[in-house]
């Protein structure tokens, strides 16, 4: 659970690790958009190669990526099945009621599978090589232009970083409450799914009250340390754009070019 909530950052010193988090965040977004340029086996092939290349650059073993993909496996199987069963066109291999398995259905489902898995793969690369706090920083930094339309970017990034900071604290509280209730005979792992969900409710209420208390304490502590809404404050953690971050741009330019050329075949 802890890993799931906190992202899966794995310490490393590869080129991808060292990249500016903004470059990685933008890259991931760009990739997700570029995928829609792909329309045939050639272009999807390029997408897959690009993803594998990016993964290779992180110097992180394939096993870890597999762990990142595995939770999404059911979603992928479900989508692919739907595609196969309900898309029609081209040669029909099997027809049974409203269900048809057709040539287009199979091709489409393969494309969808590639799309989904490469998107998950790319975002895993982002979260595996970037600590969550830096992703939040990058996000806030990219939102900065919104200041012009009076969007409270600084407050927003403060909220994000506090939320991230308190994930482990809340997990700890939750564990304490669970243990306290286990000591009095509650069980969280027995019974069917409904029973299990029900057993979580008595845990949620103390957790909620506890978080309120933490929030009040934190607000007092922040005020005592002179945090003022809307006042200018300096930023200790600064993101710095390096020359190597520009290479990401080249890689993506090459990818876009290849996709545009190959989609005509």
């Amino acid at each position, binding site marked *: 659970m802890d890993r799931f909530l906190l992202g899966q950052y794995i310490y490393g010193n590869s080129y991808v690790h060292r990249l500016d988090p903004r470059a990685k965040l933008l890259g991931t977004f760009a990739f997700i958009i570029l995928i829609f340029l792909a329309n045939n086996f050639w272009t999807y092939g390029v997408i897959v190669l690009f993803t594998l290349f990016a993964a290779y650059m992180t110097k992180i073993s394939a096993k870890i990526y597999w762990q990142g993909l595995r939770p999404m496996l059911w979603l992928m199987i479900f989508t692919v099945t739907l595609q196969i069963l309900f898309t029609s066109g081209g040669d029909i291999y099997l027809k049974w009621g409203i269900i048809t398995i057709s040539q287009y259905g199979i091709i489409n489902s393969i494309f969808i599978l590639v799309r989904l898995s490469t998107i998950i793969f790319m975002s895993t690369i982002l979260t595996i090589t970037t600590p969550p*706090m830096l992703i939040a920083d990058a996000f806030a930094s990219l939102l900065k232009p919104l200041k012009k339309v009076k969007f409270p970017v600084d407050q927003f990034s403060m909220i994000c*970083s*506090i939320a*991230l*900071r308190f994930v*482990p*604290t809340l997990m*700890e509280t939750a564990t304490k409450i669970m243990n306290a209730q286990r000591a009095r005979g509650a069980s969280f792992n027995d019974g069917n799914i409904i029973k299990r969900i029900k057993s979580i409710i008595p845990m949620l209420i103390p957790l909620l009250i506890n978080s309120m*208390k*933490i929030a009040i*304490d*934190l607000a*007092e*502590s*922040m*005020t*005592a*340390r*002179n*945090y*003022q809404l809307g*006042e*200018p*404050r*300096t*930023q*200790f*953690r*600064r993101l710095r754009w390096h020359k190597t971050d520009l290479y990401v741009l080249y890689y993506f330019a090459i990818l876009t070019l290849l996709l545009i050329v190959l989609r005509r075949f």
Partner: protein
Amino acid sequence: MSENIIEVRNLTYTYSQNNQPTLKNLNLDIIKESWTSILGHNGSGKSTLVRLLTGLKEPDSNSQAQIKINGIAASEEKWFDIRNDLGIVFQNPDNQFVGATVEDDIAFGLENRNIDPDEIEKRIKEVLDFVNMSEFRKMEPSKLSGGQKQRVAIAGILAIRPKVIILDEATSMLDPQGRNQIHQVIQEIKAKYQVTVISVTHDIEEATKADDICVLSDGQLVKQGTPKEVLIDENWLTEMGLMLPFAKQLAVELRQHAIDVPRDILDESELVEYFWKLNSKM
């Protein structure tokens, strides 16, 4: 006569859900650059006093309350100025951590004061060295012990170069070892920086180490003076709902066995000293 850094007059505060005021016409002076301990049993109004002294709560509007800190008379718009030279360490080390790592947390107070990032970097290094936590700089708070967390909190406050540091029951959630570390840090701070330390506590051992003690009971200041003056009368301390320091507990027992330990002995080392003399006389 020494200068006062904090002057409180007629301070009255009533919680909205209570009829009785928690603090009643409290008057209090705190001497500049002293270590003052504010002592009192649970519910004596200590924590309320801290919140009033830091502007986290406002005194009753119908009272004639006056608070003057570091020469500035407190009013709603002045609190941010006053707090610029003020640092507070709260009771629960977990809930006062704002930053995701030790260095981020120390930077928080400095960022709020709009201090240049290069200067922040310098100060983080300085204060972490001071509290002996440099190796934990990149750590997350959840990976630290209670005593370590409070040391980081103190470092975060030292970084703003305060004139007054208030410790609100800062050691009450710590184990004895953590508590001693904090006491030691306070002593080192007193030696190195020109600051006034106010420690609000019900730990009488902590109070014996202070220069000055204020005893609160039922929302009023009942006694103020040096530890030797304030803590001399065992019966009175018990009446106030306070524990006796260990050395005094022992002295009470010894008196029952006809060893007349002087009443102004407050800590173990003084007691040992007394025993040495006692033996040599015999």
